């Protein structure tokens, strides 16, 4: 399973590195979202700083939908799935591989967004441990949900509109826990932040387990 996972993760990341869709489309979109939020709130520094955790996680969620579409598009053609089956790849390994590749992309996006929030919204991070752990766990959970719901929404032309409808309500706990842990990382409330990081960990474990168990059934024809 792990050998297949590394193989698929390497393939997805190589395709992304060569096509540079993430670099030229998703990352600029995420930064654009931050700017648009700032325009809607106005230039008051205190208001922007207070809203920064929510804006960070919303920008991340919206960008995740684009990453999910992209990840599914790589797997989507019948020929790709046929060759995956002919190669005898373990579906759980394919799920884990896609999840790992997407997690790497999401972590890079989070780094960019954190820098953007610090630079544009003037926030000062007190507890980097809380912030980094919540971002890593959220990347894992969101990537698991993205790969699962990408497979659920299938290859139809409706996927672009269907995927956000299916995915975003499921990702609501990540938004809530992420915002709370980010707030804790900005204040001296690291103890409370730990609880929300725990919620993110549970979310990631549950959806990773569901993906490992169900991805094969979803990809069957």
């Amino acid at each position, binding site marked *: 399973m792990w050998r297949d996972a590394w193989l698929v993760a390497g393939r997805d990341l190589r395709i992304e590195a060569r096509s540079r869709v993430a670099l030229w489309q998703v990352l600029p979109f995420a930064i654009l979202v931050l700017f648009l939020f700032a325009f809607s709130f106005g230039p008051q520094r205190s208001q922007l700083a207070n809203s920064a955790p929510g804006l960070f996680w919303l920008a991340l969620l919206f960008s995740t939908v684009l990453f999910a579409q992209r990840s599914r598009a790589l797997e989507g053609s019948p020929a790709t799935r046929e060759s995956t089956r002919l190669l005898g790849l373990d579906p759980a390994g394919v799920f884990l591989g896609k999840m790992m590749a997407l997690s790497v992309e999401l972590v890079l996006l989070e780094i960019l967004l954190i820098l953007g929030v610090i630079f544009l919204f003037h926030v000062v991070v007190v507890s980097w441990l809380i912030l980094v752990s919540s971002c890593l766990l959220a990347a894992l959970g969101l990537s698991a949900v993205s790969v699962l719901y990408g497979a*659920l*929404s299938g290859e*139809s032309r409706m996927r672009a509109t269907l995927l956000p409808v299916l995915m975003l*309500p*499921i990702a*609501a706990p990540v938004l809530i826990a992420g915002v709370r842990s980010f707030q804790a990382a900005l204040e001296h409330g690291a103890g409370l932040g730990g609880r929300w990081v725990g919620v993110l960990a549970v979310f990631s474990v549950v959806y990773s387990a569901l993906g490992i168990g169900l991805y094969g059934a*979803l990809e069957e*024809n």
Partner: protein
Amino acid sequence: MRQRLNKALGPVAFVLVLLTVWLGLFVTPPDVDQGELVRLVYIHPALAWVALYVAFGMAALCSVLYLWPRTRSMVFDYLAAAAVEVGVVFTILTLITGSIWGRPTWGVWWTWDARLTSTALLGVLFLGYLALRRVPADPHVRARRCAVAALFAAVDVPIVHFSVLWWQTLHQGATVLNSNLTPTIHGSMAWTLLLSFVAFTLVFVWMVIARYRIEVIRVAGQDVALEAAIASRRAEGVPS
């Protein structure tokens, strides 16, 4: 016998709903604290009971039965779809009646209370399920995807149930099925509340049966139309 039961179910449910409305509006007394507003208790909890536990519980059960290889049958897929469709209607009615109660009680039509928010989220999750059903796909592939989506969405049901205990926000706790199993409602009010649960559950069953039968007829109609199209194409003959 079964057909007669089906035919009787609708009128029986209708009469029980009318009886609930009559008892709720004219027979039961006003509440000491809430006054006339308490009459919504004969509609709102019953709607929530049907939406959260009966409809989405049935959808989850049918989805498990479809996914389980030994019990896999399209019947469970149709039943799950019917339960979700009716469940979404009951969820919307639950939110509307809750909102009507909330305006005079809390002073707002909507508040970000844990129970309200998680119920609304559940409704959106099952709306996603209904959207997924409309994606063109092989019936078995669609049934499998929808069964998985229903199970994911059903995870929210216990969260809605326990939300009043975990977060202790504005929404009150359970009146009948509380942790001590000691109902805080008595006399004619309790009996009317119980009747409302039975009446709306029967309405749900009647609607699900009707929706299931429509789906069976629709699928059969599709097969007939396909066969007719093939026959008409064959009748055109092969050009020499």
